[in-house]
């Protein structure tokens, strides 16, 4: 079979080369044995259309974090290949570069912070429409403080002095430390997050503000620091550098994704105090983002990519009858390769296989630390997009008040469940997934209102204005906007 093409390895193979090669090969068995009608799908009227891909060689960017898993798995398990895609995944040095390279077209798509397509589309920190049709995961972040701060927090709250303190741990015991630091040094208490529109930024703000610590306001779309009135200064550090920055004493704590909290425990430089599982249960974390231009030029390719990602997500969350993950150990091994996340396999396996180490004495089972597929985690819910918009407005990154209708409209622009749906339908018709893996056809994209937050506030995406006004710290909106 190979002979006809073996001479062509140096230069490009043309379609004529292929035709003659196929003819030669076909004279044996390939064509003759397949008369029409002996394959499923050949019944009249039931011919499935094969996606005509606009582009087959793709480059996707990612940041060294375990939640890039669906992209890596789709590549390593051959799901991209099955769709006829030849995908290279390339580590990027930080979120800013990654976003820029998607905007300039150097990358076809990327593992993105859920806030990045949203921020870029509404003009916070960037101005280029980015869309997403696939949500990579729920949860997966933690907040870690340095050992010294942890000791002080324990002094402020005796309940924390136990080997297994009660969770979730709020920021109340941190508050006196922050106040004392500001009084002594005359500047806000330094902590780290990964990007101005990152989930981490909003989560650590949420955590701090829910205990009455003011994390600072942004003065508009172009303000990248957000330190107005700040008691805590949240600076940007790329995820893999977080532990080193903490160790170096530049920051006293940070909010970052895995494995960089577990690395802090493993190397004894810090103590994770909470995860975003407790700050907002099942919060959206990363998405697969592409530029709107790219998606318009390559609709079929986009569909094929989403198809492969759906299968990867399903593979990652596959469980046996006892609810144990089937594939996560393998996933941790794949991710530990130096071309991907590169951290030690044992550290990655911690959170990937459903445990989280808060301290050596405090190892907790957290099977939902990273949800990739179950509970419709990969579906791009409009309500998830709106949550980010409310936080951007709450902290002043969006400088003007917007009516409730604006939130819904923006969500429809940025989140593209219709593409996800179409990909899912194709997979269902191919028998690779079940229809029950996806929300019912009449689902409107709004998750149920929830109070599963560390402050117990209720979030109803249908009422973004009410949600923004429910916080003590942050911008307030005129209530009449809720009805506009």
């Amino acid at each position: 079979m190979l002979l006809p093409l073996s001479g062509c390895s140096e230069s490009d193979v043309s379609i004529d080369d292929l035709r003659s090669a196929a003819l030669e090969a076909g004279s044996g068995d390939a064509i003759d044995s397949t008369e029409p009608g002996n394959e499923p799908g050949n019944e009249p009227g039931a011919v499935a259309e094969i996606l005509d891909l606009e582009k087959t060689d793709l480059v996707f960017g990612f940041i060294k974090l375990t939640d890039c898993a669906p992209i890596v798995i789709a590549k390593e398990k051959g799901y991209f290949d099955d769709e006829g895609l030849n995908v290279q995944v390339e580590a990027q040095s930080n979120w800013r570069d990654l976003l820029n390279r998607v905007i300039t077209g150097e990358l076809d798509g990327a593992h993105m912070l859920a806030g990045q397509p949203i921020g870029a589309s509404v003009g916070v920190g960037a101005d280029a429409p980015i869309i997403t049709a696939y949500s990579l995961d729920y949860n997966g972040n933690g907040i870690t403080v340095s050992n010294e701060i942890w000791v002080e927090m324990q002094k402020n709250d005796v309940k924390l002095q136990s080997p297994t303190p009660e969770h979730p741990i709020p920021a109340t015991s941190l508050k006196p430390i922050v106040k004392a630091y500001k009084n002594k040094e005359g500047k806000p208490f330094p902590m780290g997050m990964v990007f101005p529109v990152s989930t981490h930024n909003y989560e650590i703000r949420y955590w701090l503000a829910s205990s009455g610590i003011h994390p600072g306001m942004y003065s508009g779309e172009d303000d990248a620091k957000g330190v107005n009135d700040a008691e805590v200064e949240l600076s940007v550090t790329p995820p893999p550098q977080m532990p080193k920055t903490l160790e170096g004493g530049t920051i006293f704590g940070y909010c970052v994704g895995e494995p960089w909290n577990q690395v802090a425990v493993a190397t004894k430089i810090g103590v994770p105090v909470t995860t975003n599982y407790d700050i907002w249960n099942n919060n959206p974390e990363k998405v697969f983002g592409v530029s709107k231009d790219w998606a318009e030029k390559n609709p079929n390719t986009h569909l094929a990519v989403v198809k492969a990602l759906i299968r990867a997500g399903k593979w990652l969350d596959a469980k046996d009858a006892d609810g144990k993950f089937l594939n996560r150990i393998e996933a941790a091994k794949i991710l530990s390769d130096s071309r991907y996340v590169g951290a030690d396999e044992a550290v990655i396996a911690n959170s990937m296989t459903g445990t989280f180490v808060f301290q050596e004495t405090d190892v907790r089972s957290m099977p939902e630390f990273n949800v990739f597929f179950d509970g419709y985690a990969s579906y791009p819910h409009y309500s998830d997009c709106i949550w980010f918009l409310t936080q951007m407005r709450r902290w002043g990154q969006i400088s003007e008040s917007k009516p409730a209708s604006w939130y819904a409209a923006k969500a429809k622009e940025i989140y593209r469940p219709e593409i996800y749906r179409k990909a899912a339908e194709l997979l269902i018709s191919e028998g690779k997934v079940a229809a029950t893996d996806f929300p019912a056809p009449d689902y409107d994209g709004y998750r149920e209102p929830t109070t599963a937050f560390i402050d117990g506030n209720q979030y109803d995406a249908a009422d973004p204005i009410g949600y923004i006004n429910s916080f003590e710290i942050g911008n307030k909106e005129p209530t009449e906007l809720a009805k506009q």
Partner: protein
Amino acid sequence: MNWRGTALRFCKVTGLPILEPFVRLIAGEDPKEQFKGIAKYVLVPAVAIGLFLAFWSFASRHVSANSVQLPGPMKTFSEGKRLFSEHFEQKRIDGERKREKKQEAIQLMADAARAQQQAEQATGKQKETLLANASTLEKRALAAANYKASSAPTFVDQIFNSLQTVMFGFIIATLIAVPVGVLCGMSPWFNAAITPLIQVFKPVSPLAWLPLAMLVILSMFSGTDEPWLPIAFLTSGITVCLCSLWPTLVNTTLGVSSVDQDYINVAKVLKLSWSQQLFKIILPASLPLMFAGMRISLGVGWMVLIAADMLAQNPGLGKFVWDEYQNNNQISFARIAFSVVIIGLIGLLLDRIMIFFRNLVSFGNPATA
């Protein structure tokens, strides 16, 4: 006698004085003198390297941050070996994938032919779909047949990527610097005009250029679909170019302006035309300095490249080092240490090559005789 002369000339032109005592020894010259040479060029450096390695392994046992330990020479070396074996393993897998893809291509062509056949028997909407499928399948077959490995570049790939980038930057820099330098050297007025620019830009750090280089390149490609070279490659290459421009430029100017007045007078006496003067007298006479400048340029370019690759995310050794740094695992620092050694060795090799070229064109050198 004759081979001895050739061998000695080789040592001199290639800039390898280390070999000279051996040649003389074999040729039967005074052994005592030659052993002195061997001691100077071989033994003493070997002892120094030995001491360095001893110091390094001592340090590696005592230098450690909370999270990591400085890798020692043995660990560095064994990681280096692994990097190379990983490369060959990856190439083997890539080759296998390529063969599989070719097979798949033929299968897809067969599928396409089948869809075509079915289409002939079908009608209406179904026929349309089948025909579309046939052409899609052919397209996919073509893509599969021309499959290019999409695995991440290995360490060895990154070495070649880096060499490519540095050569790109260096060649462009030379193409700009030599003509401008010649003009500067020949015309005091032009020199006066250019000098302030040279003096202001020469000391600028390479990395300050990078954002500007990126901006220029992005504006060049805005609106085009497929840039003819990857943007990161161009950014990195142009940054290298902007930094390695100056030594060649300054040395060429110096070389041209300091051509021996006697030569110029001879040229005047012979009534040579301007271009004859340029090509027969001025350029040959200034070549040694020009090459001396290019040697420094290449050295600067190589140094800048690693930093530029890190920032521009251009594939190469810089990105390799950065990615490993981000991995934060037990072996990544050994890999970084190994790449530092390799970067140094390649820098040394490039320098030697330039010395070789310079010696080839230098006057008074046996090679040019």
